[in-house]
């Protein structure tokens, strides 16, 4: 995806060239966002990294924001696929699905620092469409977490708004790790997030045990 096509006459269909240029622009946008703040990223920056001309940029995207959103959407699809693959096995119980979902999300973000910065940090400063995308992702995850009210015994009375608040709070923890340059170690906050997300839907002791077992499992993987 990063390889530039040979310049000059190459007899490649125009559609293919445009796709390759578009991919390079998306990649450059993500890389630029990983290195500096979205506000400081310029179109000049992106086109020079992608080695395409400014006019090509504007043939493909109306502005910087459109390119940002396209870059975000391109990785989001992979993110969602991986998280669903990790946690949607029907033999898993609801708390196990939550645990594996958290783990898969944090691992993905740790492996894709550019995407992590875009979707958890820059989404707030990249305009209203970006913010709306961020909020709808949070709402989607919260709807799954809110399943705890019916999946777990005697928890129908947990207020519906709690899931949205704990998921948003978890995002704040993740943001603090990214801003503090600890993106690579994101999985380490998984047990803490698991506790906060599960605790409304089970006894405190059980949420604690699950969080502790998750931490042991992560440590085991580290030393293995």
């Amino acid at each position, binding site marked *: 995806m990063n390889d530039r096509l040979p310049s000059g006459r190459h007899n490649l269909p125009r559609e293919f060239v445009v796709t390759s240029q578009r991919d390079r622009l998306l990649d450059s946008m993500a890389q630029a966002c990983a290195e500096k*703040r979205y*506000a400081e990223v310029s179109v000049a920056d992106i086109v020079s990294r992608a080695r395409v001309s400014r006019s090509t940029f504007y043939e493909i995207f109306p502005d910087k924001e459109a390119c940002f959103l396209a870059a975000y959407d391109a990785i989001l699809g992979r993110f969602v696929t991986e998280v669903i693959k990790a946690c949607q096995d029907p033999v898993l119980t609801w708390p196990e699905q939550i645990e594996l979902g958290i783990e898969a999300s944090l691992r993905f973000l740790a492996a894709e620092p550019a995407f992590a910065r875009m979707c958890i*940090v820059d989404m*707030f*400063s990249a305009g209203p469409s970006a*913010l709306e995308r961020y909020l709808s992702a*949070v709402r989607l995850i919260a709807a799954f977490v809110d399943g705890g009210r019916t999946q777990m015994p005697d*928890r129908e*009375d*947990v*207020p519906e*708004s*709690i899931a*949205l*608040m*704990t998921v*948003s*709070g*978890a*995002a*704040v*923890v993740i*943001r*603090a790790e990214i*801003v*503090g340059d600890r993106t690579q170690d994101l999985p380490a*906050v998984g*047990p*803490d*997030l698991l*506790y*906060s997300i599960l*605790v*409304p*839907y*089970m*006894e*405190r002791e059980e949420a*604690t045990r699950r*969080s*502790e077992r998750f931490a042991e499992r992560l440590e085991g993987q580290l030393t293995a």
Partner: protein
Amino acid sequence: MAQTRKKGSGLNGKLPSGRHGLARDVVITSQRERMIEAMIAVVAGKGYAETTVADIISNAGVSRATFYEQFADKEDCFVAAYAAVMERMLAFVAQGFSTEESDDWVGRARGALRSLLTYLSENPVAARVGIVEGFGAGARARDRYQEAVSAFFPFLDAARDLVDEPDRIPPQTARVVVGGVSALIFAEASSGNASRLPEVLPQMMYLAVVPYLGHEEAMVAMRETEVSR
């Protein structure tokens, strides 16, 4: 959100121009405070991105040179304004936490949250700057947010004194609660509904209590929370 200012109306008023015999540091402090207040008012009105240094100096009634004597740039001034708003929010939380007659932690936490929500509902400008723009403004402001929020943690972590094996409650617990509270305030404030904030106090009480004392106690805390209007 135009602000009318009366001459000499305390800290926010512009000092009389010309020779006034005031010490230079008094003048500087007054100008700094006016610029910070101007930043808060203008950002609340049209958002950080649209705010310009020209807006700030005209609202504060100072020269451009004065602005750049005290602030490196727009973001620097915003960081100062943001710190001022967070300080006020923290003061309301601390006051609510300590003046609540009840001496149990749940009562104090309720007092703190009620005080914060009442303040923000009456000062939507503070909600807009402290929460909405604090999330979205420049990176320096964002880094400050991370520091500023940790000042709220001790009010929550005080609940650890009430449980056996407090160290088994994960360290990030308070940050998740504060993040959840800010997210709900963000949702109300960014849709222009800051005045409705006190209505969400019961759910926030549940959120604050559940990781420390569990579901049953959180339900009691929520049911015993009356919404003040």
